[in-house]
């Protein structure tokens, strides 16, 4: 089954129609999705800032280990809400390039976690003992920040996609900007 077929199948489910037609449900789930970004995304920001050498009042071990469970919980809620939003309008999302940019960046976040797992995220005791944060930890933090900010921005842009720009629009664009 192709992805397009899955998207069509998803959107034809009864819940999907009810969901995207409801005046309250769609914005509510979106608001929960956004709240998760603030609360649990905030935890990710704090972890990364700590890895970059800021917020030294907390040990890295504390920040990474004590927040791990909550970050995971928040992640599950955030992804569930996101899945509901995308699933209810699957065919619209399927043709939306920003959605695919977001999915690609999300996949890269998964890769990032695996690449830096042993050297950074499971190695906090050693990093806490180090005089300065090793550049590998800083690299992990910088990449994580870029990827997460990219995911959030691409997510917001999904709502602005109106369809492929016609060739004429691209030709007119420099003129419109110049004018």
């Amino acid at each position, binding site marked *: 089954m192709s992805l397009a077929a899955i998207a069509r199948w998803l959107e034809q489910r009864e819940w999907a129609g009810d969901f995207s037609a409801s005046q309250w449900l769609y914005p509510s789930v979106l*608001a929960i999705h956004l709240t998760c970004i603030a609360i649990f995304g905030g935890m990710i920001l704090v972890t990364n800032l700590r890895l970059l050498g800021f917020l030294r009042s907390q040990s890295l071990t504390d920040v990474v280990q004590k927040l791990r469970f909550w970050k995971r919980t928040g992640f599950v809620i955030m992804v569930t809400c996101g899945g509901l939003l995308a699933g209810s309008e699957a065919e619209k999302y399927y043709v939306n390039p920003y959605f695919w940019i977001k999915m690609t960046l999300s996949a890269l976040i998964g890769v990032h976690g695996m690449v830096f797992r042993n050297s950074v995220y499971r190695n906090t005791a050693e990093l806490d003992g180090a005089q300065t944060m090793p550049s590998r930890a800083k690299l992990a933090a910088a990449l994580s920040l870029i990827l997460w900010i990219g995911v959030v921005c691409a997510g917001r*842009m999904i709502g602005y996609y109106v369809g492929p720009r016609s060739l004429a629009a691209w030709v007119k664009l420099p003129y419109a900007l110049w004018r």
Partner: protein
Amino acid sequence: MLIQTNVVLQAMIENQWLFPAAECVHIVSFALSIGMITLVDLSLLGIGLQRKAASRLVRSTDLWTLSGFVVIVFSGLLLFASDPDHYYLSSVFQIKITCLVLAVLFNYTIHRKVALSADASGVVSKMVAGVSLVLWIAVIFGGLFFSFA
């Protein structure tokens, strides 16, 4: 007439990226500030970092939270200026701004004081954290529901 006098709207019409870009900046910066504040809240509740970490947490996140606020307000004003009537006439927006003002005042008064004092009782800490969480979440919901109302 309005279009001619509203420079922000004019800029946004000429550059279609400006409004979405301002929104993205708004979201990322509120994730920073509200994320930092709720981290303090959670530690007051004993969730995640411990209660005794709260005072150090407030001090070390202070500047980040404040910097976030500056960017939030700036990007928010840019969004607001694109269509002021539409915003201030909306009751959802009025509720959002009321919650925002209350949340900011609460953050720099009671919230801060309780988080910094090591001897505040558990119940008080938890109530303060609860109020803070409710206010900030209301601000986010208000902002989102404004565009759906």
